[in-house]
């Protein structure tokens, strides 16, 4: 039994690669938090408090990049709608955070402020249950999962593929954004949900809460990575790649490709929703702009720049681009979209396998 587990782990990664994962995880999950919590603030090695939610946000982006890479890089399904699943997860979390502060809003009502403002007298039915954290968490994953399942069922069954599929996902996300913008939809309209106070009784402003959220995001990323790795190194993963390369042929080999696509698509959506769940308490707001087309497209760009089909590349791409974005939008606010667009074009033209792919071929050339 133990030997089998060991064997499977070594299939997922070489020993060296596992050491790399372990090292990165230690750095992100142990060293950085400790340098924030234990090293005095005047030391150069101290990680300032304000960076913790920012880095936590990056971890969430890394997780959603994994979700996009899993379906795009391995199954050839380009989603331009993962912002929807991210936002749905985020909204479910936001609903819990709103409910957990009932009576403490500006209006001192048991209803969220925006409902009081709209002169609503009671909670809409779909807000019930969200005062419970486990319920909200379950809804945050199952809800987007169901949306993905139903959408995927019809899309894959109708054999919608390639760019058409991408366009439909984009349209779906856009439609959802328009819906969430409506005040009557009951999700706070264009302001969304914000002014959260606490999570599970802990103040969201407290450095310790933020640190715990950061570490939780890191663990989620690590587990998400391991899960994706497990999937792609199993026969399931080989079937996915075969679907990407020759779907008809794999069907003639006896695989119902629709089931495979549906499974991985739904799993990916739930992974992305988890990223949204962890994102919202760290940034303190969720609103419909998370569903705007550019957000979903950006996720695809992270993966393309980092290198699709490599998982680590997707995460690195997400970090690099968001790091660049944080810096550039402060230094030259109007230039960001141009830089992003140019970067995407350059990478597509000159580094079709992204940065990780380029690095790998450089190493290979060196070795020769």
């Amino acid at each position: 039994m133990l030997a089998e587990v060991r064997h499977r782990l070594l299939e997922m990664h070489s020993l060296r690669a596992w050491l790399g994962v372990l090292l990165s995880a230690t750095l992100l999950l142990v060293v950085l938090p400790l340098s924030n919590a234990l090293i005095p603030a005047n030391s150069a090695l101290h990680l300032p408090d304000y960076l913790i939610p920012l880095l936590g946000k990056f971890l969430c982006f890394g997780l959603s990049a994994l979700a996009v890479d899993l379906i795009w890089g391995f199954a050839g399904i380009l989603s331009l709608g993962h912002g929807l699943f991210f936002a749905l997860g985020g909204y479910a979390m936001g609903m819990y955070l709103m409910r957990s502060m009932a009576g403490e809003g500006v209006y001192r009502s048991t209803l969220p402020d925006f409902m009081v403002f709209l002169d609503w007298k009671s909670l809409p039915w779909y807000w019930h249950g969200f005062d419970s954290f486990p319920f909200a968490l379950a809804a945050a994953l199952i809800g987007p999962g169901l949306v993905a399942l139903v959408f995927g069922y019809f899309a894959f069954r109708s054999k919608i593929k390639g760019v058409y599929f991408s366009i439909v996902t984009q349209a779906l996300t856009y439609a959802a954004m328009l819906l969430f913008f409506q005040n009557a939809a009951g999700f706070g309209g264009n302001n969304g949900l914000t002014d959260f106070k606490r999570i599970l009784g802990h103040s969201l402003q407290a450095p310790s809460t933020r640190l715990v959220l950061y570490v939780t995001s890191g663990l989620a990323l690590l587990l998400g990575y391991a899960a994706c790795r497990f999937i792609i190194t199993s026969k399931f993963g080989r079937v996915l790649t075969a679907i990407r390369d020759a779907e008809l042929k794999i069907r003639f080999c006896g695989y119902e490709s629709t089931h495979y696509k549906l499974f991985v698509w739904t799993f990916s959506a739930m992974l992305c929703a988890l990223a949204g769940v962890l994102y919202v308490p760290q940034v303190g707001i969720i609103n419909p702009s998370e569903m705007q087309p550019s957000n979903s497209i950006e996720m695809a760009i992270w993966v393309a720049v980092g290198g699709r089909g490599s998982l680590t590349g997707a995460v690195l791409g997400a970090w690099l681009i968001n790091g660049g974005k944080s810096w550039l939008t402060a230094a030259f606010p109007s230039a960001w979209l141009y830089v992003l667009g140019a970067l995407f074009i350059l990478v597509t033209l000159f580094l079709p396998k992204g940065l990780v792919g380029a690095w790998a071929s450089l190493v290979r050339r060196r070795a020769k």
Partner: protein
Amino acid sequence: MGQSREAKGKVMRDGREGMVGRALHRAGLAGKSLGLTGGAALSMAQAESSLHAPASKHNKLVLWVEEVTVSFDGFKALNDLTLTLEQGELRCIIGPNGAGKTTLMDVITGKTRPDRGAVYLENRLVDLTTLSECEISALGIGRKFQRPTVFGGHTVFENCELALRGSKGVFHSLFGRMGRADRERIDEVLETVGLSDRRHERAGLLAHGHKQWLEIGMLLAQDPKVLLVDEPVAGMNHVEMERTAILLNRLAGERTVVVVEHDMEFVRQIARQVTVLHEGSVLAEGPMEKIQNDPRVIEVYLGA
């Protein structure tokens, strides 16, 4: 009475060839309307029972294509086509371009749904035209495409692994492990198609001929009862062609092999039984020598 004898003759002939189902049913109806004698009815019953009994190896039928019609925008790609295949035979299907050869393959494998007609396998329990590609594959029909189609990103070994007979479900693929028997089966297949020493090469990097063999190897791993092979020697040189001929001949016998081919030289090399399609239906059927001398065939195909 002359008419009646003719109907009886048809039944007898159909019976000998094991033709049943709708064709028989139709003959039966015809017989009734003609007031067929009890003897003829008996012979029909015998014909039917001989099908269910394990007949001698070469009389057992494995595939029935019955009155299949497929039209694309009014053009009849297949026109009331009826065809049967015997267990273990190697059948070549030839015909000019547009005769419906590839459409026939598409119908049998579930890629194309016919407007009318049915396709049955072995025990005739289900009509294949109501199933999906993967369900048909699971019942034991394998197909090799016209252009060599292998999974380019995977190694030769992995290509065979994917084709291997066994559970093809999502959860089995996620958590299942490959057993020793599976490995040995793949080794055996790679040995047969002569790709043992290339097992770790990426299939996309193989030479054209090797891809064709890998694809045949994948079909072997799939272990189908009926193997449909679309233009196996397209783009091959003579040496490769001969090897392929040997390979296909070896496959026939234990399984039924159907080869669609344009290359007449190759057909002469391998053919035992040839079916000529023309404008979506069967024009002639028989041994190669007979087909070659059939004036209708010469007119539409060989002479052209």
